[in-house]
């Protein structure tokens, strides 16, 4: 049963890492109304992560818990897409500092939720009934995230000169990271074989259509891909994840065994 666990962790790590990133805006949003919206997205993602970790912990048995999985695994054990761990700004090294850019946030949420609406939809038929139930719940949430981020993507792209430039820069920066969606990790391959997961590759045309349609409406162009394909989902991450986890896990790790 070890394969579905790895796959569950991939899904859970995706959700927790992006939830952590989105929550960074709490109190700093561009307008109060938007602060509320992004906190909701973050809450959905953390809720998804909890359910997925709980399911994984259940299958692992022993003393595994959702928090042990979220707080006591190192960066090399995390299985999230590299896309999701990046800070809210353009390409910079791990220890560089820069202002958060809302276009980066929105474009990332869009690219990811455009994938996940299809993934969750497919996972409703998972051979793991617990995962199927999580998928049904997550699908509704993710549909809203897609709606929210797509709406903003179009507003930014077709807004002012500055917002267009920022949105285009974010698309150029982030789009290459989506190539990771289409490679098959051992965990994914095994989960597909066990009928627990669906083949993400098969979702590519639907994702492309969704993305191309939104970019066109936003008057943005899609960059051609050439280069390095990230491998976060097999544990090879960017420099940014260890900072994110260092912050997220620090307090919990300072008090191992404590309950909160």
């Amino acid at each position: 049963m070890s394969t579905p666990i790895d796959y569950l962790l991939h899904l859970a790590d995706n959700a927790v890492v992006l939830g952590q990133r989105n929550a960074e805006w709490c109190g700093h949003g561009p307008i109060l109304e938007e602060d509320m919206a992004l906190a909701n997205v973050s809450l959905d993602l953390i809720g998804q992560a909890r359910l997925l970790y709980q399911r994984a912990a259940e299958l692992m048995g022993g003393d595994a818990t959702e928090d042990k999985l979220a707080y006591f695994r190192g960066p090399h054990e995390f299985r999230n897409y590299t896309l999701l761990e990046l800070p809210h700004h353009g390409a910079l090294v791990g220890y560089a500092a820069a202002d958060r850019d809302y276009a980066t946030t929105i474009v990332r949420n869009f690219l990811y939720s455009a994938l996940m609406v299809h993934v969750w939809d497919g996972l409703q038929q998972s051979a793991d009934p617990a995962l199927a139930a999580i998928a049904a719940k997550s699908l509704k949430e993710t549909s809203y995230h897609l709606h929210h981020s797509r709406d903003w993507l179009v507003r930014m792209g077709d807004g002012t000169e500055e917002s267009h430039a920022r949105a285009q820069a974010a698309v150029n920066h982030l789009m290459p990271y989506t190539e990771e969606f289409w490679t098959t990790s051992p965990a994914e391959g095994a989960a597909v074989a066990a009928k627990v997961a669906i083949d993400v590759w098969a979702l590519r045309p639907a994702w492309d259509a969704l993305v191309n349609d939104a970019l066109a409406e936003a008057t943005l162009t899609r960059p051609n891909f050439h280069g390095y394909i990230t491998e976060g989902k097999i544990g090879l991450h960017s420099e940014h994840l260890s900072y994110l986890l260092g912050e997220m896990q620090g307090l919990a790790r300072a008090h191992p065994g404590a309950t909160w």
Partner: protein
Amino acid sequence: MNTPALKDWPLWEVFVRSKQGLEHKHCGSLHAADAAQALHMARDVYTRRQEGVSIWVVPSVAITASNPDDKGELFDPAADKIYRHPTFYEIPEEVGHM
């Protein structure tokens, strides 16, 4: 450092239907660039605890309100039309509920 903020984001009034079969009820307002966005934002601001199954948003400027000074002529004349209320009429007890 002080840039015009929401100057152009109009104010919207939000009405929420708490459950199927009930009326939409005014619950507050918010700023949004347009109606579609106002709906989204109303969902995030006013229905975080399952308060609603349906939302209306209306531009605040579209609301025409009665003048409080006219309260007398608008509403007082209804006060003595007590025959509009069922309790005005006495029905023998043996008739039962009517």
